[in-house]
């Protein structure tokens, strides 16, 4: 019986946004239930992977530690730099730690939830994506939850620890607005990175073995944001502000919290834009995903 609803769902996914426009209330209802259904499916698949990884607890512990240590090395190299200098690009260690902590935590959250998306190219190549298309569950939820790896929590924990250090070491005059900006940065930042993961996966429908391009934007973006904008060339800063709006993950809001000048002489209010930017990022990412899925032709093997 699940198969019949499945056929409907897959058809709906393949039709895209235009498919249901004839009947508005139904369309809205369908979109919403599809979203709820996707989240539910994500949870179920993630739980399944969780149980299977927990079967080998020692291996899980090693991998989680490795994940933690691998990301911690980034910060170790910053610490090593600061064993030679007091300031980098005009910023002190606690200030850089704040930038690092926000970027690291936001990226870690996106990586935990959507980090498996970069395997899409491999799935297209070996034809296993076809299996996901015939199941009565949104494909995005399946691809995202596929091989859900709790060990990626190591990255989040590392980011939170550095953020904690920064908040203790910094001398910030806290206002209610600045306090509210902390969770706003982390959530919006995670959403911006999440949109990058989905957009990258959509790109892999076209370029099947180019997952490294996605890594350049996600992991590369995370590395970039760990340093203050004063370090980088103006054109690069312009690029990550106006083209791929990574600057809204931490630079612009965190520089407001730190009371620092903005790069590119931007006005103060841009610090409050991250939630808007996050939504704007998801529009092209979602459209790209839909058109990629619609254009998908199986390898036929």
């Amino acid at each position: 019986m699940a198969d019949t609803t499945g056929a409907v769902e897959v058809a709906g996914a393949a039709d895209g946004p235009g498919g249901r426009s004839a009947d508005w209330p139904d369309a809205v209802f369908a979109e919403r239930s599809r979203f709820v259904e996707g989240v539910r499916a994500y949870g179920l698949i993630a739980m399944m992977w969780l149980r299977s990884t927990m079967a080998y607890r020692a291996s899980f512990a090693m991998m989680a530690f490795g994940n933690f240590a691998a990301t911690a090395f980034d910060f170790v190299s910053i610490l090593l730099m600061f064993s030679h200098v007091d300031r980098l690009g005009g910023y002190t260690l606690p200030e850089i730690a704040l930038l690092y902590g926000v970027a690291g935590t936001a990226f870690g959250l996106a990586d935990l939830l959507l980090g498996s998306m970069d395997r899409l190219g491999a799935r297209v190549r070996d034809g296993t994506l076809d299996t996901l298309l015939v199941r009565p569950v949104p494909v995005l939820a399946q691809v995202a939850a596929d091989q859900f790896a709790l060990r990626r929590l190591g990255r989040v924990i590392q980011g939170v620890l550095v953020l904690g250090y920064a908040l203790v070491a910094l001398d910030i005059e806290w206002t209610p607005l600045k306090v509210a900006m902390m969770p706003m940065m982390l959530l919006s930042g995670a959403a911006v990175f999440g949109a990058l993961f989905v957009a990258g996966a959509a790109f892999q429908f076209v370029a099947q073995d180019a997952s490294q391009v996605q890594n350049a934007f996600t992991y590369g973006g995370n590395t970039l944001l760990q340093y203050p904008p004063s370090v980088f060339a103006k054109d690069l800063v312009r690029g990550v502000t106006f083209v791929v709006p990574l600057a809204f993950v931490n630079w612009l809001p965190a520089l407001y919290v730190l009371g620092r000048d903005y790069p590119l002489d931007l006005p103060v209010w841009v610090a409050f834009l991250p939630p808007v930017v996050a939504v704007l990022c998801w529009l092209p990412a979602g459209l790209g995903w839909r058109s990629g899925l619609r254009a998908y032709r199986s390898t036929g093997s």
Partner: protein
Amino acid sequence: MRLYAVVAAGQFRRFATYRTATAAGVFTNTVFGFILAYTYVALWDERPQLGGYDMSQALSYVWLGQALLMTCSMMGGGFENELIERIRTGDVAVDLYRPVDLQLWWLAGDLGRAAFHLLGRGIVPMLAGSLAFDLALPSSPGVWVAFLVSVGLGVVVSFAIRYLVALSTFWLMDGAGMAQMSWLAGMFFSGMLLPLTLFPGVLGDVARALPWSSMLQVPADVFLGKYPGWELVGAYAFQAGWALALLLVGRMVQSVATRRVVVQGG
């Protein structure tokens, strides 16, 4: 000997097939090269001559790191995953029947892979880096040759380490944990994060004495002309010494492991 050359050429061709993946990798190496280069500029602006490098040498170091990342498999991901899988499934028993030496077979293949990655993933990022930044490129062809020899030795050291990692599967049954520990050590001690000359005190001394420094720090210093005249022989001896020692250990572990396989009837 001819057989191993064929194996190496075969692996070269195999990796050369993945053109999109290579182009994507070049893109990533270039992006990371730019990000790191700017952070190095900020660091060397504050402290010129840090670690014995001037600005253009430090920037060359960044791009050498990106060029050699895949060549020396500093983050893993070479032949070892295949060998781990063959050991885990027991297919390695078939390999042991073959009239070839297991270690040399995989070494030949890994050299072919490394040669491709040096050309495919090394040259373009290096070119991009030299266009955007003022790099300290060697002017004499002799230094380039000396650098390539050093890279070759670095690849053998890297192979010998990863061979040991793969062999650990005979005992652990799952190579994932060991492989991860190995690439963590590779990232940290090869000088990929920062030149090892910037590591403080004893940590720096230890890091420079460990085999991983053969994978980036030594070839980069050869490239930057830090080993004039006979000192080059010393650098080679350091790399070759680690290569031989680790290959020998690998051989011993292999013979213990294969006897174990026979005992198990695998």
